[in-house]
């Protein structure tokens, strides 16, 4: 088994705060892996370290056996990594279809093409239509993003990420703000992804977590508390304590650490 992603002793320090501390984690190809933990546990920070939008203070990050610790976010994206954002990060003045096409045209190597009108790029519109259909946004293709509801923007985030044809997909709280029906459809969508696509998901909705993930890692106060299969995590007392009670009150007042 090859590890698609491996983090070795990764630490990220903001001033005196260790948002992520000495995390060692390995994700196998094709895995459906969830990362859970209370607010401020460092989940999003770890995602940003993996995606390259933040650089670790120490430690190493490897993608497919290649050390990418010093590579840019753009480089990692070209290597097959895609990430959705906890707070939707979209192209607000552009139509929904263009948001997805932005990813599709880059992935097909046409992002700099001056040759023909953008709506006639070979292969791009098919990918756009497919990703919009998969996320239930087909009917909104020509609307500006500013017209979309919060839940629809979350779905568009996923559509944009899928359009890059990722090998490793990082989903940062994808169902936050989605209705129950939307969450259900989202879970189906992830289940329908090809088996060789590796999915790493941060999620608070434990129903979604236990439905999708075979393996679960738990972060607490920046440290890896547990990394095990679904059933063991369900039984794990430490996890229950971190998640359900016994959290120190000051954790509640440092939400920024989770960004």
């Amino acid at each position, binding site marked *: 088994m090859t590890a698609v992603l491996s983090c070795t002793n990764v630490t990220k320090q903001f001033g005196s705060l260790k948002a992520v501390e000495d995390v060692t984690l390995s994700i196998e190809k094709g895995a459906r892996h969830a990362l859970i933990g209370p607010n401020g546990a460092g989940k999003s920070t770890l995602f940003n370290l993996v*995606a*390259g*939008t933040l650089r670790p203070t120490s430690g190493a990050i490897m993608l497919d056996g290649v050390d990418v610790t010093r590579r*840019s*976010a*753009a*480089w990692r*994206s*070209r290597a097959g990594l895609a*990430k959705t*954002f906890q707070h939707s*990060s*979209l*192209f*607000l*003045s*552009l*139509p929904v*279809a*263009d948001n997805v*096409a*932005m*990813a599709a*045209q*880059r*992935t097909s190597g*046409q*992002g*700099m*093409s*001056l*040759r*023909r*009108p*953008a*709506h006639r*790029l070979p292969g*791009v519109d098919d990918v756009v239509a497919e990703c919009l259909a998969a996320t239930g946004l087909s009917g909104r293709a*020509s*609307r*500006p993003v500013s*017209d979309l509801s919060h839940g629809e923007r979350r779905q568009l985030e996923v559509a*944009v990420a899928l359009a*890059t044809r990722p090998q490793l997909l990082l989903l940062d709280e994808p169902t936050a703000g989605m209705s129950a029906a939307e969450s259900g459809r989202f879970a189906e969508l992830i289940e329908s992804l090809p088996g060789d696509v590796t999915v790493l998901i941060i999620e608070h909705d434990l129903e979604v977590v236990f439905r999708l993930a075979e393996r679960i890692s738990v972060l607490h106060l920046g440290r890896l508390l547990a990394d095990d299969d679904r059933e063991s995590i369900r039984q794990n007392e430490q996890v229950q304590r971190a998640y359900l009670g016994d959290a120190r009150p000051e954790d509640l007042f440092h939400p920024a650490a989770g960004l």
Partner: protein
Amino acid sequence: MTSDLGTSSRTDQAARPDTGPARGRAGRAPRLVLAAALLLALVAVPFVVPSDAANLLSRILAFALLAVSLDLLVGVGGMPSLGHAAPFGVGAYVAGITAKELTALAPVQLVAAAVAGAVFSALVGWLIVRVRGTYFLMLTLAVAELARTAADQWDQVTGGSNGLVGIPAIQVVPGGGPLLLAGFRYWYVLAVAALGFGLIVAISRSAFGRSLRGIRDNEDRMASLGYSTFRVKFTAFVLAGAFAGAAGSLWTVQSRFVSPADLGFNVSAMALLAVVIGGRGRLWGAILGAALVIFIRDEVGAQLGGRGPLLLGITFIAVVYLLPRGFAGLRLHRPGRKDPA
């Protein structure tokens, strides 16, 4: 004249919130017909107006090409330049010097000016596009002021503060006579400007144009999608410089004189004013804005005894308050636009 332009612009943007690549195809035919009608009207102009007016229109067209190239940078790419007169002036000087020293052939001057504008922009853009926001404003301003000072000091080449004089009238084809009549010059300027607009519109609608809009909206997201945002911005900067250089050569065709003031802050500011008045990101709007700016400065201003700049300022304030999205935004607030499609 102006009302013709107005109609076409409004139809142009009624279809979409942005002159974006995914624009709907419906309503495209009427727009093409309008554009053709407008072009015909512009071609017919020298038959019906005196040569003064043809000269004014030539200046407007040259300046409009500058404004549209700036809109590619500001409106489409989100890079507000305060120094777009620099590649324009470089192009004007290179065209003038080519005309004096090398050939009266206008296409040669045009290509030389466009290349000069592109090379100049590439040299300075290598650094400038790496910064954003206020730093971008300050760097573009500083580079343009340096270029103006250089033009002022470099007597042997530019004629210094006296300007570059004695530029011969252009020839369009080898062996053809020089174009001395305002009407013929105007036709040449119109042809080149129309070609330039067409190319800029094509760039804006291409996949590259879409990437540029993506960077305007959310540069970090573009990077995380795998784009080299530097490459996109640098290419846009160089392309805009090439078209500004071409506009400079058109300016020289008409005025047959170049001075350091052509690279100055005034020209940059007026071009930016034209873009804002026209409505950022809508290339048609910039043409309208350019027409208004040149008309006020050269015609109305002359009759007001040199108070053109004052009137320009008042116009600007009025536009910002009354039409926050410029001319091209006129139809945006139409009732019913937000209805689900």
